[in-house]
């Protein structure tokens, strides 16, 4: 599998599994960097891609929290079924 697709799946999966499914339960980029052992640049690029796909959203304040949109929850769920 293409490494970028593997990373994309991992991010969707982790956001789902930690319960980051609404803006009040979002997680920071720093948290994802630690869990995924990924650089900020690499992670930011994939997160931006996921935002473009409307799978991920960023909380609309300065807390920098990321969470799955309803569409993102469905995409993450597709990994498991």
């Amino acid at each position: 599998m293409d490494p970028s697709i593997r990373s994309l799946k991992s991010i969707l999966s982790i956001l789902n599994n930690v319960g980051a499914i609404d803006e009040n339960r979002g997680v920071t980029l720093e948290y994802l960097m630690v869990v995924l052992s990924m650089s900020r640049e690499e992670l930011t690029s994939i997160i931006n891609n996921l935002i473009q796909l409307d799978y991920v959203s960023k909380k609309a304040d300065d807390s920098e929290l990321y969470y799955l949109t309803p569409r993102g929850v469905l995409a993450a769920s597709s990994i498991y079924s």
Partner: protein
Amino acid sequence: MLTWEYPPRVVGGISRHCYELSRALVRKGVEVVVVTLEFPEARSYEKVDGVEVYRVKVEIGNPNFLVWILIFNHFMEKLSGDLHWSKKFDLIHVHDWLTTIAGISLKHSIRLNMVLTIHSTEIGRSGGLFDPDSFTKDSIEWWGTYEAAQVIAVSSALRREIIEHFKVPEDKITAIPNGVDTSRLEIEVDINEVERKYGISSNDKIVLSVGRLTSQKGFQYLIRAFPLILSKHPSARLVIVGDGWMRGELERIAIETGVRNRVVFTGFIPDKDLVALLKRADVIVVPSVYEPFGITALEGMSLGKPIVASRIGGLAEIIQHEVNGVHVFPGDPSSIAWGVNRVLEDPDFARRIGENARKIVKTKYEWNIIAEKTIEVYRKALGW
């Protein structure tokens, strides 16, 4: 009824299955309480057509998939156990391995028999057991078949697979197919509106495919088949309905094969739009490489549409080649292209197989029939 998927969480067939089965069971006089996972903006409790639906909030998480499964099973078990004191359940019905652990724990804590419906197996989904997580899922599936009083498989092919792989006694497992709610598909739709919405021209020959965008569903082979279809039918347009982790990869394949401008990815769409697209389709393709059942095929068949489907699993049972559909080889773009071209080139043939398909759905795959068969399994499980 424990299920991780229930509308609005509609990812695969389990959600639709549980939704339709629970409503059909209520119509037959069974009281059904569904316990499922939370979903953004969905209510934690609602009553839908007589079915009580509780959505569990998973209070803690973990990045690891299997740990997350164990955690949400705990919350499902906790809520179901609490509900039992007021509702006095008679039976636990769990769907697939994802909720099996909660079902087994409940079976022992509140001392009720359990029925397990298996919609697919890990060994089938993954084409083998290749990593530690797969072995764990496989073990949970086995454990579920061992603990259940009765097991339901959604096709005869899957029943056989379960008997052979998990050594389940033949009298403990029943094949009950999925059904289709034909009334859901009989609604009035505006074809012109849906054409405009998804950029379809009235002259386009629509090749429609619906499902989760995952490798198991085989969309990659359908897209690779599309240049061969376009070479014979330049007005063909491939419409792929659904979403999933593989979407970016599929879009890349469409670009690589030079057909991106003839492929529409709709993502998840409202039910009404799906019905309109099913009605508008010239042919419906189910290119799966593993498919224990194949609800999409059934929905298309109930509308009298010609179906081109991989000859595997449940699809091999539902469809009779050249009688009520066309079989193609799974994972083979040239075979898929042959099947689609066969239908598009011969409108009389397309009409004939579509009409035969519609008849078979009416007699075998109505949810009321499936609910009756499920109640029979409940009786066996309860010793009634």
